[in-house]
């Protein structure tokens, strides 16, 4: 009887989908081709600078700043998020004030203020001791960049982490409390590992923004990737070529980030899946949402 047999159904024809795909691929190919063959895009210049010492130096600065400030900014952000969610009014308020202030002041302004701290405090010393340094010696461009980027990232990451913590099931906290775990312990061992599932996608965004934001160190004489490219083109006027050089490196950096982000998401998504049913490997939660 045929109706007993395996189901090998004709899928619903999706001419629209295929048309869209073909159009998208054609458009992308056309853009890439036009770009690649345009006489206004000087590939010889791009080739010359892609691996030049100055650009690589800038790349290094960008990566170094971004990685360091991601770590420090995330740690400070976690502290701020926990303060924000704490039961102490004072801490909530302090953290709210910080987040408000550092999300408000443009990063550029912050960097310039830190770099020029000597305008406000020519010397920094510890009162009562003879320890006094010239502010300008203490706050080098790199230090100013670290400070500015860390404080800036912390404010944004605090919001992201707060969202993640709020999404963790309350039962988890109570179970940990019932086992006698202190607040710090339950936060570190129970809440944060589970919050990461929600935190990772926006944190990925934020890190990529950070990679780009390093270019503001140009204003404090730091030589990151993008501003190195800008420095070079302001000398030789090869604007498009140098921007392509920088963009290609960014494509690489973002690719690496995306791969890492995907790994983290799979790692935390897998173990954090709540399930009331045994041994069920749920499919991606919203495969249902699409065409």
């Amino acid at each position: 009887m045929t109706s007993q047999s395996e189901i090998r159904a004709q899928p619903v024809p999706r001419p629209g989908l295929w048309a869209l795909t073909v159009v998208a691929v054609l458009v992308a190919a056309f853009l890439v081709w036009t770009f690649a063959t345009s006489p206004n895009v000087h590939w010889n210049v791009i080739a010359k600078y892609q691996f030049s010492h100055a650009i690589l130096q800038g790349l290094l600065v960008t990566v170094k700043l971004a990685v360091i400030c991601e770590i420090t900014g995330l740690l400070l952000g976690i502290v701020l998020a926990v303060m924000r969610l704490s039961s102490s009014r004072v801490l909530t308020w302090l953290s709210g004030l910080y987040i408000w202030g550092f999300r408000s002041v443009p990063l550029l302004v912050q960097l310039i203020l830190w770099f020029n701290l000597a305008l406000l405090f020519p010397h920094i010393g510890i009162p009562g001791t003879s320890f006094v340094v010239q502010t300008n010696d203490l706050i080098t461009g790199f230090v100013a960049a670290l400070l500015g980027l860390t404080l800036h990232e912390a404010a944004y990451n605090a919001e992201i982490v707060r969202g993640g913590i709020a999404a963790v099931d309350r039962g988890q906290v109570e179970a940990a409390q019932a086992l006698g775990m202190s607040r710090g312990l339950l936060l570190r061992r129970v809440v944060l590992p589970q919050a990461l599932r929600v935190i990772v996608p926006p944190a990925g965004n934020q890190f990529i923004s950070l990679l780009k934001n390093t270019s503001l160190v140009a204003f404090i004489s730091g030589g990151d990737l993008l501003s190195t490219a800008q420095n070079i083109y302001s000398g030789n006027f090869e604007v498009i070529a140098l921007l392509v050089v920088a963009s290609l490196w960014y494509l690489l950096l973002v690719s690496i980030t995306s791969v890492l982000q995907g790994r983290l998401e799979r790692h935390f998504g897998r173990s954090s899946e709540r399930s009331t049913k045994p041994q069920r490997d749920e499919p991606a939660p919203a495969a249902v949402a699409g065409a």
Partner: protein
Amino acid sequence: ALLLGAAACGSSGATTDASSTGAPSPASTLLPKSVQEAGTLTIATDAQLPPNNFIGPDGKTIIGVSVDMGNALAKELGVKAEFVNTKFASLISGLQAGRYDIAMSGITDTAERQKQVDFVDFIESGQVFIVPKGNPGKVDSQDAMCGKTLSLVTGTISVDLAEAQSAKCTGAGQKPVEILKFPTVADALLQLTNGRADANIANLGKAAYQAKESGGKLEVAGTPFASSYDAVAVKKGDKEMIAALQYGFGQMLEDGTYQKILEKWDVEASAVDKVVVNEGDSLESSG
């Protein structure tokens, strides 16, 4: 120099179809047809460089040498000048994309840049130092730069000069020049006030103006060195435009408009006798 003849050619080509415009002035027919038709000369400028092109005290109008020169030029050529404030990156790419007719932004003519655009050189000036009041770093000559910190604007020839000097310093067993680079003049000069840097290098006209504007915090030091041309940037190979600009500048030099503008901004020392094309390298080699 190489383009002078070609420019003449171009201008004669333009004359033939000048009949289409209403303006009978021979000068207006020199401009490329599209500019004639539009009736406006679109000039790109990065309004962050006093006294050449910057925002006036009202906070919005662009003023300066470039603006006055551009307006006068446009008048000579029978069109209106329209200034667009933009950052350096799209100054050049916009010129190449045909969005702007010319760029007047205190641009220095160098051999390397001539590969991308053509220059009509109309200001010649040597470089001097801008230092904090009293010149605490004692930077008053190129050799005095050794071991000092200079806060410079990216993409200006001051960076090349400082780097060359730094090499000389180390060659002579002295400390190198420490170079800080900033996107705008204001950011660079702030480091002089802040005590982080000893000097900035700028051409004489700009330096004098900036020292004056600083309210006594900054002053000019040293005697001018390393002369260079400030130029109008034109899309590479736009011979008609070059010819038109040369004609316009020629008229302004003749009737004294040119000198009056420079005097207005206290930069008359930077005047040229004759407007030339792509001659930047000739001064560099001599400087």
